[in-house]
């Protein structure tokens, strides 16, 4: 049992919760529920929805895959080097996504540092393509992935590695068969975080991959456009985004805070 909170604190807390809920509720009040089926089956909307789901899942997958070695590396680093590396990895979390998208263009654009070589060697052009959407989404999601996995790796008892080594396992076997399975919870959590971040991504995507309906126009971009042209469609798509986000938060609640 805990002490009862002072009345003033309770009232203030509930007031803030209500204030946060107001925009969501106001939005839900404006939704033309009877027209939802027809709104959601419009070509632009279904395209955006499918594109969003596809690109966000792929981006989460990419972010976790490339995030694992980075997190392993970071979890072994100490001192200034660790701080600098971690700051670099976390940069996309703090940076305005538009800046991130612009930076991606300079790196992976057709005239970019890596992009021109990439096109020469593989013929792959990332900007203004589905690949570009995935790259932009993975880029902004990576910090969440690395932080989540690194924290879990650091709290893993290092003696497990010693135990594995004492059983003859080399570093690779130890990492793949012992360390990563033991932090698998954080890998799942990182995947969901990355996916949630990617699903709402706007700035980096529009800068790097553009806003081409049916090709690179994800749900957030479609909502943004629809706000100018067809508010009811915008509301319908917003409802979908809200439901998906709430669903993820509720399923993952035990990962992020202890269930009551």
């Amino acid at each position, binding site marked *: 049992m805990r002490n009862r909170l002072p009345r003033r604190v309770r009232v203030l807390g509930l007031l803030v919760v209500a204030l946060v809920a107001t925009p969501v509720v106001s939005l839900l009040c404006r939704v033309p529920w009877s027209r939802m089926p027809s709104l959601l089956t419009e070509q632009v909307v279904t395209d955006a929805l499918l594109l969003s789901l596809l690109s966000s899942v792929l981006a989460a997958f990419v972010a976790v895959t490339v995030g694992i070695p980075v997190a392993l590396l970071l979890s072994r680093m100490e001192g200034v080097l660790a701080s600098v590396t971690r700051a670099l990895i976390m940069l996309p979390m703090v940076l305005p996504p538009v800046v991130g998208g612009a930076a991606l263009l300079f790196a992976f654009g057709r005239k970019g540092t890596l992009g021109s070589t990439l096109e020469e060697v593989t013929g792959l052009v990332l900007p203004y393509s589905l690949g570009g959407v995935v790259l932009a989404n993975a880029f902004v999601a990576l910090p969440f992935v690395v932080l989540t996995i690194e924290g879990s790796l650091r709290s893993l*008892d290092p*003696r*497990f590695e*010693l*135990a*594995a*080594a*004492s*059983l*003859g*396992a*080399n*570093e690779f076997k*130890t990492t793949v*068969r*012992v360390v990563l*399975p*033991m932090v*698998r919870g954080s890998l799942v959590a990182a995947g969901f975080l990355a996916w949630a971040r990617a699903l709402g991504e706007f700035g980096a995507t529009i800068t790097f991959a553009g806003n081409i309906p049916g090709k690179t126009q994800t749900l957030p971009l479609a909502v943004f456009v629809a706000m100018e042209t067809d508010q009811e469609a915008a509301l319908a798509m917003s409802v979908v985004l809200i439901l998906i986000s709430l669903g993820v938060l509720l399923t993952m609640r035990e990962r992020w805070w202890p269930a009551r």
Partner: protein
Amino acid sequence: MASAMNDNRPTLLDAHIVVERGDLLLEVALQVGQGETIAIMGPNGAGKTSLLYSLFGWLPLRSGWIILDDQTLDSPAEERPVPPHLRNLGMVFDDGLLFSHMTVEQNLAFGAADKLVDARLIELLDLSTLRSKRVQQLSAGQRQRVALARTLAAEPKMVLLDEPLSSLDPSARTHARELLKSAFRSELAGALLVTHDPADAFALADRVMVLENGKVTQFGSLSDLSAQPATPWIADLIGWNFFTGSGKNSIVVLADGTEVATSQSGLLGDVTVAINPGSVSLFLEAPVGSPRNNWRCEVFDLQFVGDVARVTLSGVMKIRADITRTAAAELGLRKGLGVWASVKATEVVVQGSERSN
């Protein structure tokens, strides 16, 4: 039999270790014979665990060498030390450190050379009913048995054990000690056992190395230590009662004919037993029930050290008992008073170095 085995064993481990860890400078020279078990004891922070880690290559040597079974693991002449996983050293931790995402079977097979865990090992450590269980379903004692089996299944040249029994309650501890003893006898080329319990050292080890503040302060048999303790810490540790006699199945008969009941069976020939003064209880009336050792004695000497009353008894059994000051007052202990001294058979530790085969 017993003592002769210490002498002419071929060397299994030859190590000279100088390691710095924080404020601690650890300097240890250590030779372990084939088949020998050495207990490492010492106060907290003396460097016991650091010694194990440095043998493993987890702590870099500042100088010195490690040679295991004629293979040089580390020495000043070596370019690079042999990495931990190629050292053929097994390690058993205080809390077992089983891999919780695997079943018992998968844990056992993890290091097993041929992926088939020796049936003898399963039988020896009584694991047949546990094999398909998940680690979370095991008790502390079961975990330690699995941890030991997992280590032995990898067929190491030598096993390092870091307080392997400390997470167990007293009854499980006695049982686990017996299992360790038989495992050491049948499976092991040699072992280093870090422990804080003289009972472990006495039952399992041929020799005891005492580390204090990074240095070896005494290295010999436990009875050597008790006969001539080199430091106050050792003197305090080894306040134990030691008796020699001849084994007759589960009984040890002392020279004067007094019988000591143990929880062992099949004892034969010369046997040494040890009894912790803390497990001797005193009564004014003859105790009834329970299979115990009860001896009619007299209080020969009585000293108070803090909250503890150290009682030296004479009579059929010359034994020392540590009881609480309160208990001593309730019994009205004084020199010359007749009392019954009582010890459970399971509290009588039988020396392990006698290998009766």
